[in-house]
């Protein structure tokens, strides 16, 4: 079998794995679940006792401070947690994200996890 073909098959196999994994975790990377949810959310962040405004939140996390997320809501949570675990350590924030997935029950996510 040609090496290129093997590489293509490996990429396909990885996607099969991602589809299987998606059944057990809330994240939806590389599993072909495009725009399958509508999540309203709002991010509130406090650094050194001062609440950040929407523009500062967007600069910090590179996503909007509030809005409707058509990708998985887990992506927003992963971005905030990923930033706070790495670059955010220099100026740590206390973050609260309030969200509703598909108009369901309101949920809250906090960082640091309480």
């Amino acid at each position, binding site marked *: 079998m040609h090496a*290129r073909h093997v590489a293509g098959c490996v990429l*396909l196999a990885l*996607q099969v794995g991602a*589809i299987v994994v998606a059944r057990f975790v809330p994240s939806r990377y590389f599993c072909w*679940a495009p725009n*399958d949810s509508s999540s309203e959310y709002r991010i509130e962040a406090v650094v050194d006792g001062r609440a950040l405004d929407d523009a500062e939140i967007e600069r910090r996390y*590179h996503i909007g401070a509030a809005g409707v997320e058509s990708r998985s809501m887990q992506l927003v949570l992963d*971005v905030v947690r*990923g930033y706070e675990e790495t670059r955010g350590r220099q100026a740590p924030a206390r973050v609260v994200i309030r969200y509703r997935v598909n108009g369901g029950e309101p949920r809250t996510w906090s960082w640091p996890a309480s």
Partner: protein
Amino acid sequence: MARLVIDGLAARLRQGGALRPELLAPARILALLLLWFGWPVSVPEPFVPLLPVFDMIGSPAAVRAVIRAAALVGAAGLLFDVRPRDASVLLGAAVAAKLLSCRPTYYNNEVFVAAFFLMIGLDTRGLRPPLLRAQLVLLYTGAGLNKLLDPDWRSGQFFEVWTTLEHHTAYLQWKTHLAPMRLSWLFSWATILTELSLAALFCLPRATRPALLLGVAFHSTLVLFAGATFGFFYFALLAAYLALADEITPRVRALATGFIALVGATLTHRMEVTWATYVLAALAPALAALALRRRRVIPEASESVATEH
């Protein structure tokens, strides 16, 4: 003498990296659309990457520059027919690298763009590329399965909420004529069953024609309903379908390629649909049916005489 050197160099550049015209045309048009909408320029610096290695291999600016350069070189290779197979892999790898390096800008439509270029470049079988076909099967299987297993999709709740948040006035008007949630339930199950049907149809090479027709109708309807091409999704899928349509003539292929380019040209620079996009999306299923119609084979006179005797 100089001409001989140049021709020899050009031949060496193309050697081993050629793509059949059936695959080169759709790959070129999608690469052109990426450039048209400024994709390589808009590549961001690595930020909260899906693969932590992107934070370790160099400065964010340098990583972004490499990804941009790879994308531009890959696109140029496809457009100017310089080792297009390798160029397709390079462009697909660049798109994938952007997705893996910057989590906030992870978009499913770009995942398919990356997969399209990678499968086109990695497939060695030429006509009826099995890797690209398998990719479409996975796409529709994953999409259909995710919806089938989601209670909000099975009940129609997602459609109910999505159309409200998107202020879809026509839909909100239509649903008043039915029982609560009934229209959303119908739309949900129509989507689930269509996606799973496409997965099944693309599994069978003999069912390529109905799969392509159903796919064009489905995605064109989505454009009309949602008022969006979902980034590059609509174009990438049309390009993938074109790559699998091996029964059409070169002339029809050229027209189909032009159609995809025309759809792109009707969008604003922010990829918002205009009235012209709606018109083309409405025409797309009929044009696809016309392009994919079976050609009637007329037997030659000598054959029919031989048959009679």
